[in-house]
């Protein structure tokens, strides 16, 4: 059983909703990423989405774009991100790690090489924003061979016919983008989310995560009522941006927000 499958099974048995934080690897500097990952797990994260920096993050809002630029200033490339996961795994063999990013750095590394090295580093899956299932024929089987999941997105514009196609290609979990827009946008409509999540459930038994626009304990709790997992990214990354001058404050700023979300999700 994969780490992702095991984690969701454990959560289902205890009746809890998964909390999935996103941070960009190497933001604000490469040395902080692995300690931050461990601290997030201690604060209640069930799975970590680790962003691979890219020069042209078209699907991201200004907060995560800036994070990518900070990481790229330290020359954080895909190989270094894999090194970070390898280091994380020396102390944590249970928390799934999913890489999130854009296709081009993987194209350059080569699909076979990426699949092999990601699996060896202890990565559990990849979420590639600009790779819809129609273009995934090359990468998907190579990831599968290595036991890695390819996590696909669905959006408010996704039709039932596309849901069918996407769910057929997906493994691990699926990710519903809760709004029309980029990461960190503000127009979250929970009743629309509930409707769409119900529609997706008709097409798959995989866990359904919801992200984009979740910024605090309250929005996390509301989304948590309809989803199996709640993904929070920009709200955390903003806390990094706010504390660039006080590096010591970054980890506590992030873990305190995650702690509030964990409490709200668990109904504390």
């Amino acid at each position, binding site marked *: 059983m994969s780490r992702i499958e095991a984690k969701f099974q454990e959560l289902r048995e205890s009746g809890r909703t998964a909390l999935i934080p996103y941070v960009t690897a190497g933001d604000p500097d490469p040395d902080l990423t692995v300690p931050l990952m461990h601290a997030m797990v201690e604060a209640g994260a069930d799975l970590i989405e680790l962003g691979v920096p890219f020069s042209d*993050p078209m699907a991201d809002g200004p907060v995560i774009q800036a994070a990518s630029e900070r990481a790229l200033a330290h020359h954080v490339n895909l190989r270094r991100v894999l090194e970070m996961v390898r280091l994380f795994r020396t102390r944590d063999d249970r928390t799934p790690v999913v890489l999130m990013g854009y*296709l081009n750095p993987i194209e*350059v590394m080569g699909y076979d090489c990426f699949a092999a090295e990601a699996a060896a580093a202890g990565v559990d899956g990849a979420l590639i924003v600009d790779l819809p299932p129609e273009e995934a024929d090359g990468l998907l089987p190579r990831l599968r061979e290595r036991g890695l999941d390819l996590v696909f997105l669905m*959006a408010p514009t996704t039709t039932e016919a596309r849901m069918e196609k996407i769910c057929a290609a997906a493994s691990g979990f699926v990710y519903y983008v809760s709004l029309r827009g980029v990461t960190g946008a503000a127009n979250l409509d929970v009743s629309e989310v509930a409707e769409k999540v119900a529609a997706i459930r008709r097409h798959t038994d995989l866990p359904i995560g919801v992200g984009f626009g979740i910024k605090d304990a309250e929005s996390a709790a509301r989304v948590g009522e309809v989803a199996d997992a709640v993904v929070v990214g920009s709200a955390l990354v903003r806390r990094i941006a706010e504390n660039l001058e006080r590096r010591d404050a970054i980890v506590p700023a992030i873990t305190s927000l995650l702690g509030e979300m964990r409490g709200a999700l668990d109904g504390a």
Partner: protein
Amino acid sequence: MTDPVRPLAGAMPDERGHFGEFGGMFVSETLMEPLEELIAAWEAAREDPAFQAEFDRDLAHFVGRPSPLYFAERWSRQLGGARIWLKREDLNHTGAHKINNTVGQALLARRMGKRRVIAETGAGQHGVATATVAARLGMECVVYMGEEDIRRQAINVYRMRLLGAEVVPVTSGSRTLKDALNEAMRDWVTNVDSTFYIIGTVAGPHPYPAMVRDFQAIIGREAKAQMQEQAGRLPDALIACVGGGSNAMGLFYPFLDDEQVGIYGVEAAGDGLETGRHAAPLCAGRPGVLHGNRTYLMEDEDGQIIETHSISAGLDYPGVGPEHAWLKEIGRARYESVTDEEALAAFHDLTRTEGIMPALESSHALAFARRLAPTLPADQILLVNLSGRGDKDIHTVAAREGIQF
């Protein structure tokens, strides 16, 4: 090299927008269904005689087509060698080929019931062409432009504002054309229900590369008929500058199956390919995925997109249309490059000998003709796409020569 199917025209793209291994639809899920809707609307419009008639009417009476085909007799004689003919896209309304495409896409936007159009622009030519058609059709228009380009192209910015467009400065990344494209994509993903994204070149996700090519193919269709009429035969070679590559695709496409006609695309070598400061992905880049399609890119060893350099803002782009990548791969077209210096020399040449001031983009095509013509006999014909006029570049040329106004 793969053995290409014949005929080439109409063979590509496949139904998912692939030109061989290039092209495709590499976008976030939110845009997949809107792109499917666009494909359906475009396919229906293409088959609809009423839509085609309206497009043709606008090209004739609003754009001013057909654009003339002009024999640059004095310049040809001066260079000694092949005769150079110019397709005068610089004489179109708004001064470049860009308007052919914006007229077409705006009509399609109206047909789809969209009231708001957005565009990215580098030099401002596509932004102006979009603002122009939006003004005419009474549509809301937002143009994304890199902060650096806004500084370099103040007159075009003011022109767009006069036409009623909102020009939004883009401050992310390198603050140039590629970042403007990123920002336009972000707008589109946010306002996808109300908004039509008018992409200015033969790049982006399917159906844009094919659709923009089809709107621009009027250039090649006219030129082919005009060559027959005025010279009594087809040219021996076509030459066009390639940034994203829409003026080049527009000229090349109707000639793809005329095997006796050579095809040259000319990229911007900037300070020289060897300096790394250039914008020539086909000559010096490698395949990757950016802005919704797989194509040749300027990127570093990690797959990060690198900054480009060209004296011509319209060629300052790290990617290129996927159909050019395919034509390179199958060997049907050759891609060359010329430096800033060579382009400037051609700019002056044509201005002084023919009384035609070309855009710096088009000057790259002219510079290659200037290199090639003297190596060929006088009975050969080179057809150069003079894609735009040079008025917008006067400040750039003057600054380069140390002249202050």
